[in-house]
């Protein structure tokens, strides 16, 4: 029997031409002499012919566009970037990384559209983009803290804003809580504390012996921000977290805010300016991610506007690594690439998932505090790592450069036919897009993107907002992100508190030309949670609370 099986197997191999010369000769002899072997050979051959003659299946559509769109979405929305195997961006070829701005642009549009279905929007009409404004507010810490200074950050209160940002800089729960306690004991910083400065000079002030200030944001021709994202973290009071108030910040700079006309869901709840709905206010205690693509002057103007309202935004922090960066070209603050944002969003989603799973108010508040720590870690990635990721050059998609973009009517539509990626960026011009309204919606968004949007269509009134545990999904039962994967940032990394520059009329015209190009920024608005509320399981704070009282 064994011998028989061996012969049949050799016939099969012979049929496929997968035998050597002696075996071939042997099989030819066998097939000539043995009718049974010959019949088996013929049957196998006939079966092969039948299989090969099956009608060819053909796809009706070109899959290329769908594949690229999905790949881009996967790259952004999946938490793959947060896994150790791919977290090290240095292992990814530069050329590959340069695709990510396109990825980000395309997916962010999709994400924003989905999110807007469930969220109320501030109904003011979109204002026309305004290019000219000043002054530049590229943040610069001219004196990075020494280890001793960093130690003092941990132990000694600075001011309300610096105290809170110190928590994120140092990046540990202990330090975070210590800094918040320190901030609680100190009076708020008034705008008068800031020393106004002419537009062509840095607006500096001294904070605890450290010189902080702004420098003119003059783009260096050799520098490109096409693949960079500026990350700004701002703490905001519940009042300031309302859509209408956040919108004011961006609209004051001519950055279009998502309007009602952009709503996908015609039944989306709206609110009158200045009379936010209950739901709107309810979201005011939830972190918000606002992705902005606008001229650098507009982005910096928004930064300036935030800094001009210290009571509503007690802490505004540009990427803390910026000042320590060895990159000389302007502005070093734009030293985050899309991978950083992706990673941040991945962590953000994980924190949101965890909050959804646990459901209780205490656990949600704990998660919120944990998120602050996460933010600190993400934003304090070692500068060297970030620099290694951000070598400019090789970017083929130049749509971010308005000089090369065709602005004639219909030009964007024509470009779409040529290159989906380009038009995606074109559609981004000078606008803000809300990436999420609460911590758990991002996770749902990611789920929805993978499952056809069903899960994303759940109402945004998440467990985080309502204190009700959502139904666990497969994604929610996934292992939690290892929070301690990153090393805590060193003391030398902590620095930089944004200041309040005085707007300069003089800077308008010149910088309008200089900044006629698009940059990207991710504004992370973190709600200031009253300490007593954070530790209680009581309903949300009342709406009569003053903005400044929302500080922890």
């Amino acid at each position, binding site marked *: 029997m064994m011998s028989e099986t061996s012969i049949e197997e050799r016939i*099969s191999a012979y049929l496929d031409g997968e035998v050597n010369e002696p075996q071939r000769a042997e099989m030819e002899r066998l097939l000539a002499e043995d009718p049974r072997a010959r019949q088996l050979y013929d049957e196998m051959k006939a079966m092969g012919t*039948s*299989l*090969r003659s*099956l009608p*060819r299946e053909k796809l009706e559509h070109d*899959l290329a566009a769908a*594949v690229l769109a*999905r790949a881009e979405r996967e790259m952004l929305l999946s938490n793959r970037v947060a896994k150790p195997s791919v977290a090290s961006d240095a292992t990814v070829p530069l050329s590959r990384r340069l695709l990510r701005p396109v990825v980000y642009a395309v997916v962010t549009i999709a994400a924003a559209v989905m999110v807007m279905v469930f969220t109320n929007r501030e109904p003011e009409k979109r204002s026309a983009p305004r290019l000219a404004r000043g002054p530049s507010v590229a943040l610069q810490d001219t004196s990075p803290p020494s280890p001793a200074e960093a130690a003092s950050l941990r132990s000694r209160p600075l001011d309300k804003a610096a105290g809170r940002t110190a928590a994120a800089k140092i990046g540990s729960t202990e330090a975070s809580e210590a800094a918040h306690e320190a901030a609680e004991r100190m009076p708020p910083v008034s705008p008068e504390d800031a020393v106004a400065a002419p537009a062509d000079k840095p607006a500096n002030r001294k904070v605890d012996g450290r010189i902080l200030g702004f420098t003119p944001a003059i783009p260096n021709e050799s520098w490109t921000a096409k693949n960079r994202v500026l990350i700004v973290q701002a703490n905001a009071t519940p009042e300031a977290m309302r859509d209408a108030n956040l919108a004011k910040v961006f609209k004051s700079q001519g950055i279009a805010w998502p309007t009602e006309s952009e709503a996908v869901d015609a039944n989306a709840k709206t609110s009158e300016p200045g009379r936010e709905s209950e739901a709107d206010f309810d979201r005011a205690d939830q972190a918000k991610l606002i992705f902005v693509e606008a001229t650098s002057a507009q982005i910096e103007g928004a930064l300036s506007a935030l800094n001009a309202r210290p009571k509503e935004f007690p802490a505004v922090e540009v990427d803390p690594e910026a000042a320590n960066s060895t990159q000389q070209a302007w502005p070093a603050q734009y030293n985050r690439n899309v991978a950083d944002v992706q990673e941040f969003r991945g962590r953000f989603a994980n924190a949101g998932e965890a909050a959804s799973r646990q459901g209780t108010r205490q656990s949600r508040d704990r998660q919120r505090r944990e998120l602050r720590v996460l933010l600190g870690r993400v934003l304090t990635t070692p500068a060297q790592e970030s620099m290694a990721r951000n070598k400019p050059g090789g*970017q083929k998609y130049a749509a971010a450069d308005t000089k090369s973009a065709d602005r004639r009517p219909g030009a964007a539509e024509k470009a779409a036919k040529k290159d989906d990626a380009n038009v995606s960026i074109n559609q981004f011009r000078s606008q803000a897009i809300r990436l999420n309204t609460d911590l758990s919606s991002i996770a749902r968004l990611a789920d929805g993107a993978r499952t056809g949007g069903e899960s994303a269509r759940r109402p945004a009134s998440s467990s985080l907002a309502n204190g009700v545990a959502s139904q666990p999904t497969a994604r929610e039962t996934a292992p939690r992100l290892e929070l301690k994967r990153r090393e805590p940032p060193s003391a030398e990394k902590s620095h930089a508190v944004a200041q309040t520059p005085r707007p300069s009329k003089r800077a308008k015209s010149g910088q309008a030309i200089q900044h006629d190009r698009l940059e990207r920024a991710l504004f992370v608005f973190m709600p200031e949670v009253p300490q007593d509320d954070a530790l209680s399981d009581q309903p949300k704070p009342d709406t009569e609370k003053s903005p400044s009282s929302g500080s922890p």
Partner: protein
Amino acid sequence: MSEDAELIQATLDGDSSAFGQLVRRYQDRLYHTIASLIGSTEDARDVVQDTFVQAFIKLETFKHKSPFYTWLYRIAMNLAASRARRRRPRASVDEIRERVGHEPIDGSAGPRERAEQVERVEQVRAALSCLSDEHREVLVLREIEGFHYEAIAEILELPVGTVRSRLFRARMQLRETLKQTVGEDIG
């Protein structure tokens, strides 16, 4: 450098349209093979799309040690296997019959010949769908795709000897199945 390699390099250099060309080049071939393998055109379409998405995301890991299509096929086979595990029972004979009705048949043949062709296609597909997954995949790779044993071994991550013996068993199993539906003479 092969044309595929050039397109891959262009993709890695930031030209995503180059990957679009790769998709267009291989989508139908892959689709036909996967449809034969899993017996559902709808699932096959999803698998093919997933395959290209994964290929795009992991393109930097492709080392050019084997042809791009082989690498692509390995991804597709893994995805198809995963889908097959989730979706049991697999393609039904009814589904095959339904699909056969829409397939192009040799127009030059007479009505009787055309009916026989339809029947033959149906029988072969039904028999193929009756094979075990591991037998079907090796048979499809060999007979429909025309891969050599070495390539099949690489795609399925098996020793060549295993491919050889598995292919033989797949043929014997298919032969038995066809005998049950067609009769003794299958040649």
